[in-house]
């Protein structure tokens, strides 16, 4: 039951897991591709709405306010004038979307190689730290090389961080879920150390505040919509869009992508076909981490500029990436849509929300609930298809169960 000839037959669970993953993927494609994610989203919002209703708030009004808080009402009266509330909110939503696209790709790429990268948060943090360090140092550089060095460093750091998990899986068979969870927590504590009292990246101006230095102005990304320095939308947005294209190109138009997908579908078959499973596990994990590290780098240089100890536990974009990728069926287009949805939720339920129906504190937690429900339902596509088929009454009721049995 080992995956590939070179990998120790230590974890038979992996073989089963990857086996079912391919089967599941086929199942989703068969169902028309769109059914599972759309129904998942609808169900999650429905149940979230029920909780809102049960606690004495009007769910429709709450969702409307969140919609407006995310600036999605901008489409009814589009304007580039950032003074308009909807335009400002939309720019902030897109800022979150930028991050979530990359964090989603970090999960999706590993998934296509049959691995679950739960460590996007840690890889994102590592990218953030390195970008802050490189962005603060080298302040004598000209903007373009400075930005390239800082972004490149962040990307490489994320790749290296995830690469540890890939390397451990390929060489000693350590399960990537366990190692990426551990790497997440190591990254979190290292960050608290770096920016904390007496830490090496703590700001030089005020040693009593556990916050990093601001990155130099030469390393800050240009803003194209909004006020620079006041969280305007930066060019990182286009980098994220480009990353989606790169993701699609790598997977579908290169040998590397073919090998990664082959290992994801069936490591045994891939090994039999002469593909090195070990090499691809490490490569896929490193590329995954590169996306998350890039997200951290762009956030730091694009609008955060500094990071503090108290910001660390507040950040959950790496984990949101899991929901984004799963909802987007680990494809480029799906990830983009999932990232927009969760980006809107992330901003629309917190800072953007002005509502007398539901407080931002409640709505923010509603986001977590919806995120949890989405991940829960996507993981159980059998249920979703069951609901779908029962509703349509087109097939016998047992059909989805037998389809799921193709494991």
């Amino acid at each position, binding site marked *: 039951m080992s995956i590939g000839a070179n990998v120790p037959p230590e974890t038979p669970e992996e073989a089963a897991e990857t086996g079912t993953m391919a089967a599941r993927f086929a199942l989703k494609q068969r169902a028309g591709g769109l059914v599972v994610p759309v129904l998942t989203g609808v169900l999650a919002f429905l149940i979230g709405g029920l909780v809102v209703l049960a606690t004495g708030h009007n769910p429709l009004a709450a969702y409307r306010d969140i919609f407006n808080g995310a600036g999605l009402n901008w489409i009814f009266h589009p304007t580039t004038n950032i003074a308009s509330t909807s335009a400002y909110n939309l720019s902030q939503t897109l800022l979150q979307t930028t991050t979530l696209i990359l964090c989603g790709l970090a999960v999706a790429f590993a998934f296509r190689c049959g691995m679950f990268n739960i460590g996007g948060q840690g890889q994102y943090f590592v990218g953030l730290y390195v970008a802050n360090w490189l962005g603060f140092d080298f302040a004598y550089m000209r903007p373009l090389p400075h930005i390239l060095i800082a972004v490149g460093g962040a990307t490489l750091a994320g790749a290296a961080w995830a690469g540890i998990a890939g390397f451990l899986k390929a060489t000693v068979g350590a399960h990537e879920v366990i190692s990426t969870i551990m790497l997440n927590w190591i990254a979190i504590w290292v960050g608290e150390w770096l920016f*904390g009292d007496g830490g090496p990246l703590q700001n030089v101006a005020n040693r009593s505040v556990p916050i990093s230095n601001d990155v130099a102005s030469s390393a800050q990304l240009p803003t194209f919509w909004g006020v620079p320095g006041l969280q305007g939308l930066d060019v990182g947005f286009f980098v994220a869009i480009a990353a989606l294209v790169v993701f699609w190109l790598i997977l579908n138009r290169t040998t590397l992508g073919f090998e990664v997908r082959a290992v994801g579908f069936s490591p045994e078959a891939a090994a039999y076909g002469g593909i090195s499973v070990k090499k691809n596990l490490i490569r896929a994990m490193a590329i995954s981490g590169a996306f998350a590290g890039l997200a951290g780098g762009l956030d730091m240089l694009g609008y955060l500029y500094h990071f503090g100890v108290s910001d660390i536990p507040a950040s959950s974009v790496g984990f949101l990436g899991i929901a984004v990728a799963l909802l987007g069926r680990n494809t480029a287009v799906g990830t983009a849509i999932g990232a927009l949805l969760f980006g809107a939720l992330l901003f629309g339920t917190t800072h953007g929300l002005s509502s007398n129906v539901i407080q931002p504190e409640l709505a923010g937690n509603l986001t*977590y609930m919806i995120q949890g429900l989405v991940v829960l339902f996507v993981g159980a596509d059998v249920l979703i298809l069951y609901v779908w088929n029962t509703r349509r009454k087109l097939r016998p009721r047992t059909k989805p169960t037998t389809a799921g049995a193709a494991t």
Partner: protein
Amino acid sequence: MTPTTARFDNPVSGWLRNPAATGYSGLVLGVLAAFLGIPPIQTRTVTGPIIVGVVAIAFGIWTVTRGRRRLGLGAVVTGLIGIGLGVLATRSGVGNLNAVFNASLIAQTFAFGTPLVFGAIAGMFSERSGVVNIGLEGMMLMGAFWGVYGADKGGTWVLGLVVGMAAGGLLALVYAYFAIHLRADQIVGGTAVNFLALGITGYFFFQLYNGNYVSEGVSTIPNVRIPGIASLHFLGPAIGDLNLMVWVSFVLVIVSYIVLFKTPIGLRIRACGEHPRAADTVGINVYAVRYGAVVLSGLLASAGGVYLSDGFGGGTFTDNMTEGRGFIALAAMIFGNWRPAGAFAAAILFGFSSAVALRLQVYSASASTLFNVLPYVLTLIAVAGVIGRTVPPAADGKPYQKQ
């Protein structure tokens, strides 16, 4: 020890010729080298730690030459670290040493370790039955919030424990349905459980308490003051006044060992985790056993959560209160190789490292913060197989399909 020749027909030299015994002695000596420098022994010269450490390294090298490479290298590394820590301790101030290493460190170790013990044992039951439980963190968080809620509204900590455990058990039941009946990917499902718990507890914390600390005067889980011991010099502050749940956790470890390895129920749980098809063939209801184990897992993890908020926390709750303790518990379970005693030892070790980390602030805030990575680094090393391989149950994480 097989004294085959007359020359070594002597228990001491026979023991010395046994590489395993020598290797483990090296490990113990390595720890001793560090221990010499701290209270109560607290030697102030570097000679002691160095001599003991060198002996540990020598034992390790000898063990390596006798074929037990991994064990021997372990002893060598422990010896080196022991010398380093021992010398460091002799160089640091007596006042600081006494502030870090005193009797209440033991009490604090148990206080930090207990939620991890509950979580690790909880995870062990679930995984022994073949269901991976990444959702420990979420179940613990449910216990933490609803436990305080129950104690507050019900007026007694007993009700808090009941309500908290019920909430965790309920979440575990939902997870069990998805993982067992719907055969959802267990890692994905467990991740979902963590998000859900974060959302549910945060939402209701704000809805019911406006996000503030829970009102004063909540009935909390009491400490057990042992009359004879509480007034003693060292043992008193160490174990004389521990929380009730700490003692419960000790009992839990023993009971779970007996249940898992000495009863038919335990055999069934392990059978479902190792080879569910075979278990099914001999008439064991795999689904029922797995449901039971996962729900039990939820009950135990949330009991750890209730202790966190209503015992250790003194009746308060804060957003995301568990702060990754569920994941440390998961790590402890893996580090303890899916066994009750191992999980307990690892949980207490991680609790110890948290307690030491907190106290290292007398030296430097930086060192104190950085020390917190220890459990995660150790677990990473453990899953990498550097110090003996960890072996999960064979069917861990595999959904079972009835035929």
